[in-house]
């Protein structure tokens, strides 16, 4: 029990709370200066290592490249949750006492005496927005915005809910990203383009196949992307198919999954390659849609045709480079071997040619799009926590309670005590008005 009290005292200490905020802040500052591995591409990571070898080695040794999953950060969060939990309990007690208690210690009251009877004083106060919250031997206590006492409690409860829900999501979430070309299917167990999962989550495996039926996109007159949408077919084990559409900002909820349309899309080029040994293979080259009709989109495919060989591809949507409306994608292939360019080859559908000893034929072109599959629970908790935080902050800062205690003195005079729980200087006018009103008759003689 004594240990529990010591833990509680430690976690509720103002210094502990401030230290925790500063430590969290310090971790985030470190995380924003040291590139985090989950935000870096493999090329980006290699560049960071090449540019700052000592710092990169040190960061890796100390685990600073994954600061948000570092045990140190987890400890800060754990202590923060503990502090918030105890704080919520304490603040609940304080708020209840302040709202319904008869009187409590704290900031000093402004006081004056008046011959006006207590009934008239309380009646005037009620008309001015004060509510009777308690009465007893020490007098009647009225309060303007008594709900303001609950602001801090709600603010901390909200933060607790958000942190707890976020932690739950971080531990249990499953997420997979894939690029699918039209007509292509993604089957249960297939490998994702990229995937993330929480510590307690299993590998993300879909329970049915997904096939991309079509991709549609629109552009603004300035060629910015206006919208992207994909038509998907979900096929279960009985081969029954269900079609659904997903678009940007139009989330598809299906069988416990949330499916998002990524803004990645473009053309998939199917190229048949015959290598010098006469072996024939068909490759799918996914290239992002160009940003402008007169600017090509590029893609590099290192080692696809063997070690030391780099196949480079570029394409225009419209060979005349005028518009995105006229789709007749033209592919240009270039091959480098050990850093030396072997040649380049423009290809239209059905077209063929050779670069060095490799023979290429463009079989077909389809559209492709990026899809994000997410499976997690707890987001409602996060958003509910947000709501509570906002509600608590508003109560805390916009409606500080103002209290008045009205009591009768032995000489028959009425004593009025007033105070604002916070920012009393702001509400000084209310006290002045109360005093003026209640001493008016006295002043008039």
């Amino acid at each position, binding site marked *: 029990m004594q240990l529990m009290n010591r833990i509680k005292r430690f976690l509720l200490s*103002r210094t502990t*709370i*401030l230290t925790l*905020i*500063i430590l*969290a*802040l310090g971790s*985030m*500052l470190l*995380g*924003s200066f040291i590139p*985090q591995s*989950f*935000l870096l591409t493999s090329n980006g990571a290699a560049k960071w290592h090449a540019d700052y070898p000592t710092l990169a080695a040190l960061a890796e040794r100390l685990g600073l490249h994954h600061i*948000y999953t570092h045990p140190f950060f987890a400890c800060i969060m754990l202590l923060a949750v503990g502090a918030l939990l105890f704080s919520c309990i304490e603040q609940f007690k304080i708020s209840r006492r302040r709202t319904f208690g008869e009187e409590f210690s704290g900031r000093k009251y402004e006081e004056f005496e008046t011959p006006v009877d207590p009934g008239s004083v309380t009646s005037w106060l009620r008309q001015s927005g004060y509510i009777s919250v308690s009465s007893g031997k020490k007098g009647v206590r009225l309060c303007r915005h008594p709900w303001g006492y609950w602001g801090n409690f709600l603010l901390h409860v909200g933060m607790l809910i958000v942190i707890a829900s*976020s932690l739950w999501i971080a531990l249990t979430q499953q*997420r997979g990203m894939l690029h699918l070309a039209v007509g292509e299917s993604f089957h249960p167990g297939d490998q994702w383009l990229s995937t993330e999962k929480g510590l307690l989550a299993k590998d993300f495996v879909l329970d049915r196949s997904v096939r991309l039926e079509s991709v549609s996109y629109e552009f*603004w*007159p*300035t*060629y*910015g*992307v*206006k*919208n*992207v949408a994909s038509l998907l077919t979900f096929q279960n084990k009985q081969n029954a198919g269900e079609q659904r559409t997903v678009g*940007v*900002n139009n*989330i598809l909820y299906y069988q416990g999954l*949330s499916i*998002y349309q990524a*803004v990645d899309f473009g053309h998939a080029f199917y190229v048949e390659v015959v290598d010098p040994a006469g072996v024939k293979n068909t490759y799918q080259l996914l290239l992002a849609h160009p940003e402008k009709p007169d600017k090509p989109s590029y893609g590099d495919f290192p080692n696809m045709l063997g070690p030391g060989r780099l196949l480079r591809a570029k394409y225009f949507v419209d060979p005349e480079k005028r518009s995105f409306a006229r789709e007749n994608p033209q592919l240009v292939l270039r091959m480098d071997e050990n850093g030396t360019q072997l040649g380049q080859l423009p290809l239209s559908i059905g077209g063929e040619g050779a670069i060095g000893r490799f023979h290429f034929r463009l079989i077909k072109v389809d559209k492709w799009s990026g899809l*994000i599959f*997410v499976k997690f629970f707890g*987001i409602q908790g*996060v*958003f509910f926590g*947000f709501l509570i*935080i*906002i509600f608590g*902050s*508003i109560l805390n*800062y*916009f409606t500080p309670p103002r209290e008045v205690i009205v009591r009768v003195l032995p000489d028959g005079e009425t004593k009025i005590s007033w105070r604002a729980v916070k*920012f009393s*200087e*702001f509400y000084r006018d209310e006290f002045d008005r109360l005093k003026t009103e209640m001493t008016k008759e006295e002043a008039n003689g």
Partner: protein
Amino acid sequence: MDKTIAVIVVLNWIAVFSYVLATVANVYGVLFKNDAVELRSYWAAWTGMVVHSAVILYWWRIVGHGPYMAPSEVLSSDAWIAICVYFVFSRIYPRIRSTSIIVFPTAFLMLALANFYNPGIRSLPPTFGGIWLVFHIAFYKIALGTLIIAFAFSIFFLLKGRSRAPWLMRLPEPASIDLYAYRFAGFGFIFWAIAMLAGSIWAYKSWGRFWGWDPVETWSLITWLFFGIYLHLRRFFRWSGEKAAWFFVFCFIMSLVSLFVTSHMGSSIHAEYFK
């Protein structure tokens, strides 16, 4: 189109001119305690705001989206909201009127700077939609408006402690200035929190994650935590006066970095929207 842009630029400069006039009259009115001139400064600011509002609405109609894509739109709407926030709060708390010395020049500088950017039409990325985006952007701008007022009070406090200039004596008492700085920092903290949370909901709806440790998100949270430390120090460690004012100035600079610098970081998902 060139004609439309010319009209917009001319109207913007009229608004800038009105704000400059408001600043000059305001500073003169406050420094030399000329109430009539000070009052006229508010009329000039109102005139500027009316013209400025018309420009924003007209441009909104032309481009088909709110003022949050191009740097010129961002700066112009920041200036507009700073003036609006000032007028709204000065009606509720008349004692903040003197912060116009800082708010008016800030507004005209932002709007003038906006005029130097290319006002070309930026198309709206597909993820840029929905009410949460509107809340996200609007509340950051409102937060900036309230933080400018808190910044003005912090500067007043620091100046009052260093100079006995007559115009400074006409400002409220140091204790009162300190309290107003604290109060408006609190407002800024809340509006910043609402903006961040709305952004989180928007991100969830757009990308399926409510937090991604993106540089802009992270810096926004860092700034919010700095304001949290400021409020904690004031409330629980009884920080006040000069120490608190300097710390707020630091927090305010952090907020400017967060709003105007981090969005240019290439690795941020926000970056493409501010190019």
